[in-house]
């Protein structure tokens, strides 16, 4: 974890550094007043060694979220330039469950590996990782992708224009597009937008009611556990120690709210799983927002540099006058 800075550290830094520049301090205060108090994010732990690949979680997800699925209007409006705007239509392929689609936010990935000289098959439930600092949310140009204080991220189907930027910037390319639905139809459908992006929203509406996500509840093997980050991380590490296993998701993309524990190294699993469209990898992922975070720190120094330059000039010209 290289470049994580807490809000308090950031504010403290900005207030001290900008001591001489009233404007910056004011901004920091304003910023503090519109961010709310932090709550510990909820994290899910997935014990891959327990998963039997029964796909109960996949069906539970579909059932629980069916009313969120798109009902696109057909025929789709023509979108220009036609060679550049792909029509992505999953509305006739709702039964596809071996990859992520706008109608399937969770699927089971298959891997085989050799453990203690024996070949074993593993099944891995895959969906959005709910990153700590989700690029899909932070880089969405309209604020259509949102992150809640409990750490989950979701895309608002009433606001998303389907430009797919969230997918481009997601290190796992998780969100999937359905053309012919959403706000863009009421704007300039021929020239801007292309539907709505869909992905796991960690059953935010069930969480609001105090229920656990559908996939967690449905699993007969109790593969998933959900809880506050510190507690889940402790559990994950204990579990990894116990099975002499490996962890994925704790540091990927600067940290996520999804922690996989596996008896097989993730590099091995990554080699074995089928990857491609709608089928995310298990690579190591660097913190995609790290450069931005570092530049944000540098930004605190910008007004100070400006003040220094102005006083430098003042000093030089007063010297010249003498």
């Amino acid at each position, binding site marked *: 974890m290289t470049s*994580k*800075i*807490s*809000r308090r550290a*950031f504010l403290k830094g900005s207030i001290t550094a900008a001591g001489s*520049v009233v404007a*910056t301090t004011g*901004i*920091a205060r*304003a*910023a503090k007043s*519109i*961010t*709310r108090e*932090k709550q510990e994010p909820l994290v899910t732990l997935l014990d891959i060694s327990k998963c039997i690949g029964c796909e109960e979680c996949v069906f539970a997800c579909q059932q629980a979220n069916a009313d969120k699925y798109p009902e696109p209007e057909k025929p789709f409006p023509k979108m220009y*330039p036609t060679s*550049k*705007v792909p029509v992505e239509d999953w509305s006739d392929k709702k039964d596809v469950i071996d990859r992520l689609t706008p109608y399937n936010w969770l699927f089971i990935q298959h891997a085989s590996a050799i453990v203690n000289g024996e070949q074993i098959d593993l099944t891995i439930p895959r969906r959005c990782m709910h990153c*700590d*600092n989700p690029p899909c949310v*932070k*880089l969405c*140009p*309209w*604020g259509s992708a*949102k*992150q*809640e*204080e409990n750490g989950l991220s979701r895309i*608002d189907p009433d*606001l998303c224009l389907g*430009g*797919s*930027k969230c997918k*481009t*910037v997601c290190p796992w390319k998780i969100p999937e597009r359905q053309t012919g639905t959403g706000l863009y139809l009421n704007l300039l459908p021929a020239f*801007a937008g292309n539907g709505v992006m869909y992905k796991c929203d960690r059953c935010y509406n069930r969480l609001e009611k105090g229920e656990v996500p559908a996939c967690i509840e449905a699993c007969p093997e109790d593969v998933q556990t959900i809880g506050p980050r510190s507690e889940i991380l402790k559990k994950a590490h204990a579990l990894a120690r116990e099975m002499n296993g490996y962890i994925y998701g704790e540091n990927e993309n*600067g*940290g996520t709210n999804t922690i996989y524990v596996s008896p097989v190294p993730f590099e091995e699993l990554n080699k074995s799983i089928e990857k491609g469209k709608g089928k995310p990898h298990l690579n190591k992922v660097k913190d*995609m*927002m790290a*450069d*931005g*975070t570092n*530049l*944000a720190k*540098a*930004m605190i120094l*910008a*007004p100070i*540099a*400006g*003040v220094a*330059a*102005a*006083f430098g*000039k*003042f000093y030089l*010209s007063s010297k010249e006058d003498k």
Partner: protein
Amino acid sequence: MKTTGKTRKYIYTITLFFITLSGFAQMPIFKRYYIADIPGFGWLAQFYVTHIMHYIAAIVLIALVTYILIDFMFNRSRLIKITRTGYLGILVLAGLIVTGVLMVFKNLSNIYFGHTTIIVLDLTHLSLCMMLLFVSFYSVIRKKSWVI
């Protein structure tokens, strides 16, 4: 002091060009409308590149604006006057910087702004950018100076 004035204008123009370009690149439009296909412009479709570029240009802009502000307060407030177009331009720039800095802050890890706040920030930033472009073009075309 003629030369510093020129350098200042030069830096401001280049920064404004890149900050506007990288700003518009935050919307997924350059790929759709062939601009990223122009040789040498492919980076316009790379969101992480344009994101970083926008931040760097913002750092230069904030430093420059602070410099001009302090320089004006201490050295030049008796020599020059800000025009009405100037005040409008300054107001819009200030708005862009404030909303921009808030968005940089929002993009840090573990920072949660309200959903509506984020949408308002996004749209205000975009509208102010359009206004700045308008004021700048108006100033250039009608030869309106921000200061006299």
